[in-house]
């Protein structure tokens, strides 16, 4: 069963909700469900969102081999009520299949679950991808509190 993290923080900026939490999962599916449940608890998505992300992940996985590997599970879904980003920092890495090579996998502790309705969102997405590529920031995320991370995301991505 998916466990809910105790250390969860939210920060709102630019019409989007930024959520950060710590958690543990043994599979990518568990990690995605933790994020999706948290976004649901915050009213950003409906229950269907988790399955929509998981279905997309099976066909088009989102593990990214950056300097520090990350995963960017997301989907195009009518289950999105409000644009949001949920960052889950895992205590132990889980395996995500790779976006550029679905037969290979990466181990990551950094899961960024995106809930955005179709549209351009260009600035937000560009900043998010830039953040994923920045291993110095990701390394800092491992020691920051969820509150600090949520504020950081809101300040730098919105």
């Amino acid at each position, binding site marked *: 069963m998916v466990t809910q993290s105790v250390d969860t923080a939210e920060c709102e900026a630019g019409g989007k909700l930024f959520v950060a939490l710590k958690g543990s999962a043994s599979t990518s599916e568990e990690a995605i469900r933790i994020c999706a449940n948290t976004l649901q608890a915050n009213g950003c998505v409906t229950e269907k969102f988790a399955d929509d992300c998981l279905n997309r992940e099976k066909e088009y996985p989102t593990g990214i081999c*950056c300097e520090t590997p990350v995963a960017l599970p997301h989907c195009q879904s009518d289950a999105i009520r409000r644009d949001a980003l949920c960052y889950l920092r895992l205590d132990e890495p889980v395996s995500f299949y790779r976006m*550029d090579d679905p037969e290979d996998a990466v181990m990551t502790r950094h899961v960024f679950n995106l809930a955005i309705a179709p549209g351009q969102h260009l600035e937000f997405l560009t900043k998010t991808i830039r953040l994923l590529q920045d291993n110095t920031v990701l390394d800092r995320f491992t020691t920051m509190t969820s509150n600090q991370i949520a504020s950081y995301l809101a300040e730098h991505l919105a």
Partner: protein
Amino acid sequence: MKSSVKVLVACGSGVATSTVAQEKVKQIAADAGIPVQVFKGTISEVPTKQYDVDVVLTTANYKKPLDRPYMTVFPLISGINKDACAKKLVDLLKAVQAE
């Protein structure tokens, strides 16, 4: 010689990485002085939409045969080898433009 090169940028959902890659492709083409028209789509649309464009670019893995010139622009998302990817893209766009 084409007046502009039509480019399809596709990713798994057509929401996130293709949006970012589309913008980076526009920038790379502009820097190289190659006029492009960039369209966005999903991987599942590639087999049909390829016929509306001159070049197909994807951020996710694509291994099926295509009738249009194709390359991956995944390095523009991961940041690893992005300069080499940009150079290869410019060469591809120039070759297609000259056709």
